[in-house]
């Protein structure tokens, strides 16, 4: 019984992780500039990898492998914001202007499929 529950939890986590990975990748393609793409890429680091590792933790059970999976996620949480920050500040100091959404006459923000100016 407990095996079945662990198996189901593991599958839910792994499928959720795959979902966030795919959505993050779609986001990287859809977003207009480097900064907004970083937001989408951040999803694959935190949620995508996190849920995949959580699913693997359920598969591993209470072993040393579990500890190692947790450590992998801990290192990911320390390193991924630093690389994101390095990319963003490199783009800023390289003079890449952040994309902003054009504002129409009524002061309302246009979404991307309105007028595009890039």
């Amino acid at each position, binding site marked *: 019984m407990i095996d079945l529950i662990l198996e189901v939890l593991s599958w839910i986590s792994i499928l959720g992780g795959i979902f*966030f990975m795919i*959505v*993050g990748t*779609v*986001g990287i393609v*859809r*977003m*207009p*500039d480097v*900064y*907004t793409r*970083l*937001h*989408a890429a*951040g*999803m694959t680091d*935190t*949620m995508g990898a996190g849920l995949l590792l959580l699913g693997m933790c359920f598969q591993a059970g209470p072993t*040393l492998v579990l*500890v*190692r999976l947790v*450590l992998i996620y801990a290192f990911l*949480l*320390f390193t*991924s*914001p*630093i690389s*994101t*920050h390095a990319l*963003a*500040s490199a783009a*800023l100091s390289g003079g890449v202007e*952040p*994309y*902003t*959404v054009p504002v129409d006459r009524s002061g309302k*923000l246009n*979404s*991307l*499929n309105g007028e595009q100016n890039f």
Partner: protein
Amino acid sequence: MLRAFGLGAILFIFWLLLSGHYTPMLIGFGLGSCGLIVYLAMRMDLVDHEGVPLQLGGRFWVYFPWLMKEIFIANVNVARVILNPKLPISPVVTHFRASQKSDLGKTIYANSITLTPGTITTSIEGQDLEIHALTLKDIDGREEDEMDHRVSWVESGSRGNS
């Protein structure tokens, strides 16, 4: 000195967890290499309140589950923005004030902001954080204020002895 022992203990636990072989010879190698690393770290002057932040202690583990919850909520929000056919983004660069006193506290705050999808810290000058946000909704200030308070609380566990 306490920090050096702490670093040694953490490194040795790390070695035990990663090796999985508990023969006297391998444990001896572990002790030897941990000792060498602590010695090198002390010579490089890395064993201080930033390199070995033992003073954060338990408070970090109270903050961490809350951060995980925020990351989850923000991920769902960003996923909904990406999957929305209209792609309703309104990217904006804005500034926040950090109330943390130490560089370590500010780093925890800035990294927490970056980890939460939808907001990225692009630079820190003094107490001023420059944030790039994916949508205007991401920076309405409520989550950030609460995060700021919580990080300050984590940091204040260290005040006085750092």
